[in-house]
Protein backbone atom coordinates (compact mmCIF):
# COMPACT_ATOMS: atom_id res chain seq x y z
CA UNK A 1 0.00 0.00 0.00
CA UNK A 2 1.39 3.35 -0.97
CA UNK A 3 0.05 4.56 2.37
CA UNK A 4 3.16 3.11 3.97
CA UNK A 5 5.28 5.86 2.49
CA UNK A 6 3.23 8.49 4.24
CA UNK A 7 3.31 6.71 7.60
CA UNK A 8 5.95 7.68 10.07
CA UNK A 9 6.54 4.60 12.24
CA UNK A 10 8.97 4.73 15.11
CA UNK A 11 12.02 2.49 15.25
CA UNK A 12 10.36 0.64 18.14
CA UNK A 13 7.34 -0.06 15.94
CA UNK A 14 9.59 -1.31 13.16
CA UNK A 15 11.27 -3.60 15.72
CA UNK A 16 7.89 -4.91 16.89
CA UNK A 17 6.99 -5.81 13.32
CA UNK A 18 10.40 -7.42 12.74
CA UNK A 19 10.18 -9.37 16.03
CA UNK A 20 6.71 -10.63 15.15
CA UNK A 21 8.26 -12.48 12.18
CA UNK A 22 10.00 -14.79 14.66
CA UNK A 23 6.60 -16.24 15.55
CA UNK A 24 5.37 -16.73 11.98
CA UNK A 25 4.00 -20.23 11.29
CA UNK A 26 5.14 -21.47 14.73
CA UNK A 27 1.97 -23.51 15.20
CA UNK A 28 0.21 -24.17 18.51
CA UNK A 29 2.95 -23.07 20.87
CA UNK A 30 2.95 -20.58 23.72
CA UNK A 31 4.42 -17.35 22.37
CA UNK A 32 6.08 -15.55 25.27
CA UNK A 33 7.38 -12.05 24.73
CA UNK A 34 9.14 -10.65 27.80
CA UNK A 35 9.23 -6.85 27.76
CA UNK A 36 7.05 -4.43 25.80
CA UNK A 37 8.51 -4.93 22.29
CA UNK A 38 8.61 -8.76 22.37
CA UNK A 39 5.17 -8.92 23.99
CA UNK A 40 3.65 -6.61 21.38
CA UNK A 41 5.43 -8.62 18.69
CA UNK A 42 3.93 -11.93 19.85
CA UNK A 43 0.52 -10.27 20.09
CA UNK A 44 0.86 -8.77 16.62
CA UNK A 45 1.85 -12.17 15.21
CA UNK A 46 -1.25 -13.76 16.74
CA UNK A 47 -3.55 -11.04 15.41
CA UNK A 48 -2.11 -11.12 11.90
CA UNK A 49 -0.17 -14.00 10.35
CA UNK A 50 -0.23 -16.71 13.04
CA UNK A 51 -3.60 -16.87 14.84
CA UNK A 52 -2.95 -20.39 16.17
CA UNK A 53 -0.35 -19.08 18.64
CA UNK A 54 -1.14 -19.46 22.32
CA UNK A 55 -0.35 -16.79 24.90
CA UNK A 56 -0.98 -15.83 28.48
CA UNK A 57 -2.38 -12.70 30.07
CA UNK A 58 1.10 -12.08 31.51
CA UNK A 59 0.20 -14.10 34.58
CA UNK A 60 -1.43 -17.53 34.59
CA UNK A 61 -4.34 -17.59 32.17
CA UNK A 62 -4.39 -18.34 28.45
CA UNK A 63 -6.10 -15.72 26.30
CA UNK A 64 -7.15 -15.77 22.64
CA UNK A 65 -7.23 -11.97 22.44
CA UNK A 66 -3.82 -10.53 23.39
CA UNK A 67 -4.01 -8.35 26.49
CA UNK A 68 -3.09 -4.67 26.05
CA UNK A 69 -0.12 -3.27 28.00
CA UNK A 70 -0.54 -1.21 31.15
CA UNK A 71 -3.63 0.05 32.97
CA UNK A 72 -6.65 -0.88 30.88
CA UNK A 73 -9.68 0.82 32.34
CA UNK A 74 -12.82 -1.22 31.86
CA UNK A 75 -11.15 -3.80 29.63
CA UNK A 76 -11.32 -7.29 31.15
CA UNK A 77 -9.26 -10.08 29.62
CA UNK A 78 -11.35 -13.13 28.79
CA UNK A 79 -9.71 -16.37 29.84
CA UNK A 80 -9.74 -19.36 27.51
CA UNK A 81 -7.41 -21.58 29.48
CA UNK A 82 -5.14 -21.88 32.51
CA UNK A 83 -1.37 -22.21 32.45
CA UNK A 84 -0.07 -21.54 35.97
CA UNK A 85 3.63 -21.74 36.82
CA UNK A 86 2.84 -24.94 38.67
CA UNK A 87 2.30 -26.58 35.25
CA UNK A 88 4.53 -24.39 33.13
CA UNK A 89 7.50 -26.72 32.81
CA UNK A 90 5.32 -29.78 32.16
CA UNK A 91 3.05 -28.09 29.64
CA UNK A 92 5.09 -25.47 27.84
CA UNK A 93 8.84 -25.60 28.42
CA UNK A 94 9.85 -29.24 28.77
CA UNK A 95 7.40 -30.28 26.09
CA UNK A 96 8.95 -27.83 23.62
CA UNK A 97 5.59 -26.12 23.08
CA UNK A 98 6.84 -22.60 23.49
CA UNK A 99 8.84 -19.91 21.74
CA UNK A 100 10.21 -17.20 24.01
CA UNK A 101 11.61 -13.84 23.03
CA UNK A 102 13.71 -12.27 25.77
CA UNK A 103 16.35 -9.61 26.39
CA UNK A 104 19.41 -11.02 28.15
CA UNK A 105 22.12 -8.73 29.48
CA UNK A 106 24.82 -10.30 27.30
CA UNK A 107 25.02 -12.55 24.24
CA UNK A 108 28.14 -13.96 22.58
CA UNK A 109 29.08 -15.29 19.13
CA UNK A 110 27.78 -18.76 20.07
CA UNK A 111 24.37 -17.40 21.05
CA UNK A 112 25.15 -18.10 24.71
CA UNK A 113 23.26 -15.64 26.91
CA UNK A 114 23.68 -14.23 30.41
CA UNK A 115 21.14 -12.79 32.81
CA UNK A 116 22.85 -13.74 36.04
CA UNK A 117 26.00 -11.84 36.91
CA UNK A 118 28.72 -9.60 35.49
CA UNK A 119 32.39 -9.69 36.40
CA UNK A 120 34.02 -11.00 39.57
CA UNK A 121 33.47 -14.62 40.54
CA UNK A 122 30.42 -16.76 41.17
CA UNK A 123 31.09 -16.49 44.91
CA UNK A 124 31.50 -12.72 44.66
CA UNK A 125 30.15 -11.25 41.45
CA UNK A 126 30.93 -7.64 40.63
CA UNK A 127 27.31 -7.10 39.59
CA UNK A 128 24.56 -9.50 40.60
CA UNK A 129 21.56 -9.45 38.31
CA UNK A 130 18.44 -11.61 38.31
CA UNK A 131 19.88 -15.11 38.28
CA UNK A 132 19.59 -17.58 35.41
CA UNK A 133 15.77 -17.74 35.79
CA UNK A 134 14.40 -20.23 33.23
CA UNK A 135 17.04 -19.64 30.54
CA UNK A 136 18.85 -23.00 30.87
CA UNK A 137 15.60 -24.93 30.44
CA UNK A 138 14.18 -22.65 27.75
CA UNK A 139 17.27 -22.91 25.59
CA UNK A 140 17.68 -26.72 25.81
CA UNK A 141 13.97 -27.40 25.18
CA UNK A 142 12.30 -24.86 22.90
CA UNK A 143 12.96 -22.12 20.31
CA UNK A 144 14.19 -18.75 21.54
CA UNK A 145 14.62 -15.35 19.95
CA UNK A 146 16.03 -12.12 21.28
CA UNK A 147 15.40 -8.40 21.21
CA UNK A 148 18.02 -5.83 22.17
CA UNK A 149 17.08 -2.13 22.24
CA UNK A 150 20.70 -0.98 22.43
CA UNK A 151 23.05 -2.84 20.09
CA UNK A 152 26.54 -2.43 21.52
CA UNK A 153 29.70 -4.44 22.29
CA UNK A 154 28.61 -4.43 25.95
CA UNK A 155 25.65 -6.59 24.91
CA UNK A 156 27.19 -8.45 21.95
CA UNK A 157 30.34 -9.27 23.88
CA UNK A 158 33.74 -10.40 22.63
CA UNK A 159 34.81 -13.85 23.82
CA UNK A 160 32.08 -15.49 25.88
CA UNK A 161 29.39 -14.17 28.20
CA UNK A 162 30.42 -13.83 31.85
CA UNK A 163 28.08 -16.61 32.99
CA UNK A 164 26.48 -19.00 30.51
CA UNK A 165 22.81 -18.89 31.56
CA UNK A 166 21.41 -20.12 28.25
CA UNK A 167 22.67 -22.79 25.87
CA UNK A 168 24.22 -21.70 22.60
CA UNK A 169 26.11 -23.40 19.80
CA UNK A 170 29.49 -23.50 21.56
CA UNK A 171 31.06 -26.89 20.72
CA UNK A 172 33.19 -26.74 23.86
CA UNK A 173 30.00 -26.85 25.95
CA UNK A 174 28.51 -29.87 24.21
CA UNK A 175 29.21 -32.78 26.52
CA UNK A 176 29.37 -36.19 24.84
CA UNK A 177 26.08 -38.08 24.97
CA UNK A 178 24.01 -35.00 25.77
CA UNK A 179 20.91 -34.33 23.69
CA UNK A 180 21.10 -30.86 22.19
CA UNK A 181 18.65 -31.54 19.37
CA UNK A 182 16.10 -29.01 20.59
CA UNK A 183 18.54 -26.10 20.86
CA UNK A 184 16.98 -23.71 18.36
CA UNK A 185 17.99 -20.06 18.43
CA UNK A 186 15.95 -18.24 15.84
CA UNK A 187 16.00 -14.46 15.45
CA UNK A 188 17.82 -11.50 16.94
CA UNK A 189 16.26 -8.08 16.46
CA UNK A 190 18.09 -4.96 17.62
CA UNK A 191 17.73 -1.22 17.17
CA UNK A 192 20.06 -1.57 14.16
CA UNK A 193 19.25 -4.79 12.34
CA UNK A 194 17.79 -8.28 12.20
CA UNK A 195 20.06 -11.31 12.53
CA UNK A 196 19.69 -15.07 12.58
CA UNK A 197 21.93 -18.04 13.34
CA UNK A 198 22.20 -19.10 9.71
CA UNK A 199 25.93 -18.52 9.29
CA UNK A 200 28.67 -21.17 9.28
CA UNK A 201 28.17 -23.55 12.25
CA UNK A 202 25.22 -21.41 13.39
CA UNK A 203 27.25 -18.21 13.35
CA UNK A 204 25.25 -15.02 13.81
CA UNK A 205 24.41 -13.47 10.46
CA UNK A 206 22.88 -10.11 9.63
CA UNK A 207 19.87 -10.62 7.37
CA UNK A 208 18.36 -7.16 7.21
CA UNK A 209 19.41 -3.63 8.10
CA UNK A 210 17.01 -1.05 9.44
CA UNK A 211 16.57 1.97 7.14
CA UNK A 212 19.72 4.08 6.99
CA UNK A 213 21.92 1.57 8.86
CA UNK A 214 25.04 0.03 7.24
CA UNK A 215 26.58 -3.37 7.88
CA UNK A 216 29.75 -1.61 8.99
CA UNK A 217 27.80 0.24 11.67
CA UNK A 218 26.39 -3.02 12.96
CA UNK A 219 29.82 -4.66 12.95
CA UNK A 220 31.23 -1.67 14.81
CA UNK A 221 28.61 -2.13 17.53
CA UNK A 222 29.33 -5.84 17.91
CA UNK A 223 32.12 -7.42 19.94
CA UNK A 224 32.66 -10.30 17.51
CA UNK A 225 32.76 -10.82 13.77
CA UNK A 226 29.39 -11.00 12.03
CA UNK A 227 28.46 -12.71 8.82
CA UNK A 228 26.53 -10.82 6.20
CA UNK A 229 23.55 -12.54 4.64
CA UNK A 230 21.55 -11.39 1.68
CA UNK A 231 21.18 -7.94 3.17
CA UNK A 232 17.84 -6.26 2.69
CA UNK A 233 16.19 -3.30 4.31
CA UNK A 234 13.99 -4.28 7.25
CA UNK A 235 10.35 -3.89 6.22
CA UNK A 236 8.36 -1.02 7.65
CA UNK A 237 5.17 -1.95 9.48
CA UNK A 238 1.97 -1.47 7.49
CA UNK A 239 -0.81 0.90 8.52
CA UNK A 240 -2.84 -2.09 9.69
CA UNK A 241 0.02 -3.32 11.86
CA UNK A 242 0.55 0.14 13.35
CA UNK A 243 -3.13 0.33 14.24
CA UNK A 244 -2.98 -3.02 16.02
CA UNK A 245 0.18 -1.99 17.87
CA UNK A 246 -1.44 1.28 18.95
CA UNK A 247 -4.51 -0.55 20.22
CA UNK A 248 -2.40 -3.04 22.21
CA UNK A 249 -0.20 -0.31 23.68
CA UNK A 250 -2.60 2.55 24.43
CA UNK A 251 -0.16 4.22 26.86
CA UNK A 252 2.64 4.21 24.28
CA UNK A 253 4.99 2.27 26.54
CA UNK A 254 6.87 1.30 23.36
CA UNK A 255 8.09 4.89 23.07
CA UNK A 256 10.28 4.37 26.14
CA UNK A 257 12.08 1.26 24.88
CA UNK A 258 14.69 2.75 22.51
CA UNK A 259 16.65 5.81 23.57
CA UNK A 260 14.98 9.04 22.35
CA UNK A 261 12.32 7.00 20.51
CA UNK A 262 13.70 7.72 17.02
CA UNK A 263 11.68 7.28 13.83
CA UNK A 264 12.25 4.12 11.78
CA UNK A 265 13.58 6.18 8.89
CA UNK A 266 16.45 8.11 10.46
CA UNK A 267 16.35 10.87 7.85
CA UNK A 268 12.64 11.39 8.40
CA UNK A 269 11.71 14.95 7.60
CA UNK A 270 15.16 15.54 6.09
CA UNK A 271 16.44 14.76 2.64
CA UNK A 272 15.13 11.24 2.26
CA UNK A 273 15.11 10.26 -1.38
Amino acid at each position, binding site marked *: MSDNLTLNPSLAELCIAACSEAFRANGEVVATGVGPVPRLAASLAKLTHTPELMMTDGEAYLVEQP*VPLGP*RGDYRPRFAGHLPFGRFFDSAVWSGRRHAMVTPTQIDRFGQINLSQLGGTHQKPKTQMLGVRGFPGNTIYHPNSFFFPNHSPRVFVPGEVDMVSGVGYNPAKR*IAGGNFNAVDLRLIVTNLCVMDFGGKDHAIRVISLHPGVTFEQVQEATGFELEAGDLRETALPSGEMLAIIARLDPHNIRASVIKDNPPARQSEGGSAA
Partner: protein
Amino acid sequence: MSAPTVKPDKRMSPAEIVAQLSDGMTIGIGGWGPRRKPMALVREILRSDLKDLTVVAYGGADVGMLCAAGKVRKLVFAFVSLDAIPLEPWFRKAREAGQIDVLELDEGMFQWGLKAAAFDLPFLPTRVGLGTDLAELGGLKHVQSPYDDGEVLVAMPALKLDAALLHVNRSDWRGNVQGFGPDVFYDEWFAKAAAKTYVSCEELVPAMEDAYPGDAQANFVERCFVGGVVEIPCGAHPSMMSPAYGWDMKALKAYTDAARDPGEWSQVADRFVGASEADYLASVGGKEAVTALPLPVF
Protein backbone atom coordinates in the same frame (compact mmCIF):
# COMPACT_ATOMS: atom_id res chain seq x y z
CA MET B 1 -22.59 -24.98 72.74
CA SER B 2 -19.53 -27.13 73.37
CA ALA B 3 -16.26 -26.43 71.69
CA PRO B 4 -15.84 -28.47 68.51
CA THR B 5 -13.59 -31.48 68.72
CA VAL B 6 -11.06 -31.17 65.94
CA LYS B 7 -8.21 -33.61 65.74
CA PRO B 8 -5.49 -33.33 64.83
CA ASP B 9 -5.34 -29.72 65.95
CA LYS B 10 -2.25 -28.18 64.38
CA ARG B 11 -2.66 -24.61 65.58
CA MET B 12 0.55 -22.93 66.68
CA SER B 13 1.72 -19.38 67.32
CA PRO B 14 4.31 -17.81 64.99
CA ALA B 15 6.83 -17.93 67.85
CA GLU B 16 6.12 -21.63 68.39
CA ILE B 17 6.71 -22.26 64.70
CA VAL B 18 10.03 -20.45 64.69
CA ALA B 19 10.99 -22.30 67.89
CA GLN B 20 10.77 -25.51 65.85
CA LEU B 21 13.53 -24.24 63.57
CA SER B 22 17.19 -24.39 64.48
CA ASP B 23 20.52 -22.99 63.37
CA GLY B 24 21.92 -24.56 60.22
CA MET B 25 18.58 -25.86 58.96
CA THR B 26 17.57 -25.93 55.31
CA ILE B 27 14.35 -23.95 54.98
CA GLY B 28 12.16 -23.72 51.91
CA ILE B 29 10.01 -20.64 51.45
CA GLY B 30 6.96 -20.91 49.19
CA GLY B 31 5.60 -18.31 46.78
CA TRP B 32 7.37 -16.73 43.81
CA GLY B 33 9.27 -13.41 43.78
CA PRO B 34 6.91 -10.83 45.30
CA ARG B 35 3.91 -13.20 45.33
CA ARG B 36 2.40 -15.40 48.05
CA LYS B 37 5.36 -15.10 50.39
CA PRO B 38 4.97 -16.12 54.06
CA MET B 39 6.45 -12.78 55.06
CA ALA B 40 5.01 -12.73 58.60
CA LEU B 41 6.82 -16.01 59.36
CA VAL B 42 9.95 -14.61 57.71
CA ARG B 43 9.64 -11.53 59.95
CA GLU B 44 9.30 -13.86 62.95
CA ILE B 45 12.59 -15.49 61.91
CA LEU B 46 14.11 -12.01 61.61
CA ARG B 47 13.02 -11.31 65.23
CA SER B 48 14.73 -14.53 66.40
CA ASP B 49 18.36 -15.57 66.93
CA LEU B 50 18.25 -18.17 64.14
CA LYS B 51 21.33 -18.22 61.94
CA ASP B 52 23.37 -20.16 59.36
CA LEU B 53 20.29 -21.07 57.38
CA THR B 54 20.25 -22.62 53.95
CA VAL B 55 17.34 -20.90 52.23
CA VAL B 56 15.63 -22.52 49.24
CA ALA B 57 13.29 -20.13 47.44
CA TYR B 58 11.98 -18.58 44.25
CA GLY B 59 13.22 -15.42 45.88
CA GLY B 60 11.73 -12.04 46.59
CA ALA B 61 11.97 -9.78 49.63
CA ASP B 62 11.98 -12.87 51.84
CA VAL B 63 15.45 -13.74 50.54
CA GLY B 64 16.59 -10.11 50.49
CA MET B 65 15.66 -9.54 54.13
CA LEU B 66 17.16 -12.81 55.40
CA CYS B 67 20.39 -12.07 53.49
CA ALA B 68 20.47 -8.50 54.78
CA ALA B 69 20.02 -9.67 58.36
CA GLY B 70 22.90 -12.15 58.04
CA LYS B 71 20.66 -15.18 58.56
CA VAL B 72 21.70 -16.94 55.36
CA ARG B 73 24.75 -19.15 55.03
CA LYS B 74 23.70 -20.58 51.69
CA LEU B 75 21.02 -19.72 49.15
CA VAL B 76 19.48 -22.10 46.63
CA PHE B 77 17.85 -19.94 43.93
CA ALA B 78 16.96 -19.43 40.28
CA PHE B 79 16.27 -15.71 40.67
CA VAL B 80 15.66 -13.11 43.32
CA SER B 81 13.38 -10.32 42.10
CA LEU B 82 10.62 -7.96 43.13
CA ASP B 83 9.17 -8.15 39.61
CA ALA B 84 8.24 -4.51 38.98
CA ILE B 85 11.57 -3.75 40.69
CA PRO B 86 13.62 -6.34 38.81
CA LEU B 87 16.76 -6.43 40.93
CA GLU B 88 16.40 -7.27 44.64
CA PRO B 89 18.77 -4.74 46.22
CA TRP B 90 19.57 -6.46 49.53
CA PHE B 91 20.21 -9.82 47.88
CA ARG B 92 22.44 -7.99 45.43
CA LYS B 93 24.46 -6.41 48.23
CA ALA B 94 24.95 -9.76 49.93
CA ARG B 95 26.09 -11.38 46.68
CA GLU B 96 28.41 -8.55 45.68
CA ALA B 97 29.98 -8.68 49.15
CA GLY B 98 30.61 -12.41 48.66
CA GLN B 99 28.66 -12.93 51.87
CA ILE B 100 26.69 -16.07 50.99
CA ASP B 101 27.28 -19.43 49.36
CA VAL B 102 24.92 -20.20 46.52
CA LEU B 103 23.53 -23.03 44.46
CA GLU B 104 22.15 -21.33 41.37
CA LEU B 105 19.55 -23.34 39.44
CA ASP B 106 17.18 -23.00 36.55
CA GLU B 107 13.53 -22.44 37.65
CA GLY B 108 12.51 -25.82 36.27
CA MET B 109 15.47 -27.69 37.78
CA PHE B 110 14.55 -26.14 41.11
CA GLN B 111 11.05 -27.64 41.16
CA TRP B 112 12.52 -30.90 39.87
CA GLY B 113 14.81 -30.96 42.92
CA LEU B 114 11.81 -30.40 45.19
CA LYS B 115 10.03 -33.29 43.46
CA ALA B 116 13.06 -35.56 43.89
CA ALA B 117 12.97 -34.74 47.60
CA ALA B 118 9.20 -35.28 47.75
CA PHE B 119 9.58 -38.77 46.31
CA ASP B 120 12.62 -39.51 48.50
CA LEU B 121 14.83 -39.98 45.42
CA PRO B 122 18.51 -38.97 45.43
CA PHE B 123 18.09 -37.11 42.15
CA LEU B 124 15.95 -36.79 39.05
CA PRO B 125 17.49 -36.67 35.58
CA THR B 126 17.02 -33.68 33.30
CA ARG B 127 18.50 -32.11 30.19
CA VAL B 128 18.27 -28.73 31.84
CA GLY B 129 21.66 -27.33 32.72
CA LEU B 130 23.49 -28.97 29.81
CA GLY B 131 25.42 -26.44 27.77
CA THR B 132 25.41 -23.83 30.56
CA ASP B 133 27.71 -23.04 33.49
CA LEU B 134 25.23 -24.34 36.08
CA ALA B 135 26.57 -27.88 36.49
CA GLU B 136 30.17 -26.81 36.90
CA LEU B 137 29.40 -23.92 39.26
CA GLY B 138 26.98 -25.97 41.34
CA GLY B 139 28.92 -29.22 41.42
CA LEU B 140 26.02 -30.99 39.72
CA LYS B 141 26.92 -34.41 38.34
CA HIS B 142 25.86 -36.15 35.15
CA VAL B 143 24.19 -39.51 34.81
CA GLN B 144 23.90 -41.82 31.80
CA SER B 145 20.70 -43.55 30.82
CA PRO B 146 21.11 -47.32 31.39
CA TYR B 147 18.89 -48.00 28.36
CA ASP B 148 19.85 -48.27 24.72
CA ASP B 149 19.72 -44.51 24.13
CA GLY B 150 22.63 -43.98 26.55
CA GLU B 151 21.73 -40.31 26.91
CA VAL B 152 23.82 -38.23 29.30
CA LEU B 153 21.72 -36.02 31.59
CA VAL B 154 22.16 -33.75 34.56
CA ALA B 155 21.35 -35.49 37.86
CA MET B 156 19.38 -32.83 39.70
CA PRO B 157 19.91 -33.60 43.40
CA ALA B 158 16.94 -33.71 45.75
CA LEU B 159 16.36 -30.41 47.53
CA LYS B 160 15.48 -31.90 50.89
CA LEU B 161 14.07 -29.34 53.26
CA ASP B 162 14.13 -29.52 57.05
CA ALA B 163 11.17 -27.18 57.04
CA ALA B 164 8.99 -25.30 54.58
CA LEU B 165 7.05 -22.11 55.21
CA LEU B 166 3.94 -21.24 53.19
CA HIS B 167 1.26 -18.57 53.23
CA VAL B 168 -2.17 -19.67 51.98
CA ASN B 169 -5.63 -18.15 51.71
CA ARG B 170 -7.38 -20.52 54.10
CA SER B 171 -6.66 -23.39 56.41
CA ASP B 172 -8.51 -25.29 59.07
CA TRP B 173 -7.14 -26.52 62.39
CA ARG B 174 -6.23 -29.88 60.87
CA GLY B 175 -4.19 -28.29 58.08
CA ASN B 176 -6.66 -28.60 55.24
CA VAL B 177 -5.45 -25.65 53.20
CA GLN B 178 -7.03 -23.80 50.29
CA GLY B 179 -5.16 -21.64 47.78
CA PHE B 180 -6.89 -19.12 45.53
CA GLY B 181 -5.73 -16.63 42.95
CA PRO B 182 -4.46 -17.48 39.49
CA ASP B 183 -1.42 -19.46 40.58
CA VAL B 184 -0.16 -21.17 43.74
CA PHE B 185 3.24 -21.77 42.16
CA TYR B 186 5.22 -24.66 43.68
CA ASP B 187 3.83 -24.50 47.22
CA GLU B 188 2.63 -28.10 46.96
CA TRP B 189 6.15 -29.30 46.27
CA PHE B 190 7.78 -27.21 48.98
CA ALA B 191 5.37 -28.90 51.40
CA LYS B 192 6.12 -32.37 50.07
CA ALA B 193 9.90 -31.80 49.98
CA ALA B 194 9.98 -30.78 53.64
CA ALA B 195 10.24 -32.86 56.80
CA LYS B 196 7.81 -30.38 58.35
CA THR B 197 5.71 -27.64 56.78
CA TYR B 198 4.34 -24.64 58.62
CA VAL B 199 1.53 -22.67 57.09
CA SER B 200 0.26 -19.19 57.84
CA CYS B 201 -3.09 -18.24 56.39
CA GLU B 202 -5.36 -15.28 55.79
CA GLU B 203 -8.27 -17.10 57.41
CA LEU B 204 -8.31 -20.02 59.83
CA VAL B 205 -11.47 -22.02 60.44
CA PRO B 206 -12.01 -24.99 62.78
CA ALA B 207 -13.17 -27.38 60.08
CA MET B 208 -13.04 -26.77 56.33
CA GLU B 209 -15.90 -29.19 55.67
CA ASP B 210 -18.16 -26.98 57.76
CA ALA B 211 -16.87 -23.60 56.66
CA TYR B 212 -16.15 -23.99 52.93
CA PRO B 213 -17.12 -27.45 51.68
CA GLY B 214 -17.69 -26.14 48.16
CA ASP B 215 -14.07 -25.06 47.65
CA ALA B 216 -12.28 -28.37 48.17
CA GLN B 217 -10.68 -28.22 44.71
CA ALA B 218 -8.55 -25.39 46.06
CA ASN B 219 -6.89 -27.87 48.45
CA PHE B 220 -3.59 -27.99 46.56
CA VAL B 221 -1.74 -30.15 49.09
CA GLU B 222 -3.08 -32.75 51.48
CA ARG B 223 -3.05 -32.16 55.22
CA CYS B 224 -0.58 -34.97 55.97
CA PHE B 225 2.03 -32.57 54.54
CA VAL B 226 1.05 -29.73 56.88
CA GLY B 227 2.58 -29.75 60.35
CA GLY B 228 1.45 -26.47 61.84
CA VAL B 229 -1.00 -23.69 61.04
CA VAL B 230 -1.47 -20.12 62.20
CA GLU B 231 -3.83 -17.37 61.16
CA ILE B 232 -1.97 -14.20 60.16
CA PRO B 233 -4.18 -11.89 58.11
CA CYS B 234 -2.06 -9.83 55.71
CA GLY B 235 0.79 -12.23 56.44
CA ALA B 236 2.13 -12.00 52.89
CA HIS B 237 2.60 -8.21 53.00
CA PRO B 238 4.43 -6.57 51.21
CA SER B 239 4.11 -9.41 48.69
CA MET B 240 0.89 -10.01 46.78
CA MET B 241 -1.75 -12.45 48.00
CA SER B 242 -4.31 -12.96 45.26
CA PRO B 243 -7.19 -12.46 45.37
CA ALA B 244 -7.06 -10.77 48.80
CA TYR B 245 -4.56 -7.97 48.10
CA GLY B 246 -1.90 -6.81 45.66
CA TRP B 247 1.73 -6.19 46.41
CA ASP B 248 2.61 -2.98 48.24
CA MET B 249 4.84 -1.24 45.70
CA LYS B 250 5.23 1.78 47.97
CA ALA B 251 6.57 -0.42 50.76
CA LEU B 252 8.79 -2.36 48.36
CA LYS B 253 10.13 0.90 46.96
CA ALA B 254 10.95 2.16 50.46
CA TYR B 255 12.65 -1.16 51.21
CA THR B 256 14.61 -0.88 47.95
CA ASP B 257 15.62 2.72 48.59
CA ALA B 258 16.84 1.79 52.07
CA ALA B 259 19.42 -0.54 50.53
CA ARG B 260 21.08 2.55 49.06
CA ASP B 261 20.42 4.97 51.90
CA PRO B 262 21.29 4.22 54.67
CA GLY B 263 22.34 0.87 53.20
CA GLU B 264 22.64 -0.76 56.63
CA TRP B 265 19.97 -3.29 57.54
CA SER B 266 20.50 -2.78 61.29
CA GLN B 267 19.38 0.84 60.87
CA VAL B 268 16.14 -0.02 59.07
CA ALA B 269 15.19 -3.48 60.35
CA ASP B 270 12.71 -1.95 62.80
CA ARG B 271 10.83 -0.37 59.91
CA PHE B 272 10.59 -3.51 57.81
CA VAL B 273 10.26 -6.13 60.56
CA GLY B 274 8.71 -4.45 63.59
CA ALA B 275 8.90 -5.53 67.22
CA SER B 276 5.82 -7.67 66.71
CA GLU B 277 3.55 -8.58 63.81
CA ALA B 278 0.82 -6.36 65.27
CA ASP B 279 3.25 -3.43 65.33
CA TYR B 280 4.31 -4.19 61.79
CA LEU B 281 0.77 -4.36 60.45
CA ALA B 282 -0.15 -1.12 62.21
CA SER B 283 2.93 0.56 60.70
CA VAL B 284 1.76 -0.24 57.17
CA GLY B 285 -1.75 1.04 57.74
CA GLY B 286 -3.42 -1.99 59.27
CA LYS B 287 -5.58 -4.66 57.71
CA GLU B 288 -7.78 -2.08 56.05
CA ALA B 289 -4.92 -0.54 54.09
CA VAL B 290 -3.37 -3.86 53.09
CA THR B 291 -6.61 -5.44 51.89
CA ALA B 292 -7.25 -2.29 49.86
CA LEU B 293 -4.01 -2.77 47.86
CA PRO B 294 -5.08 -3.33 44.25
CA LEU B 295 -3.97 -6.41 42.35
CA PRO B 296 -1.33 -5.41 39.79
CA VAL B 297 -2.09 -5.27 36.07
CA PHE B 298 0.20 -7.32 33.83
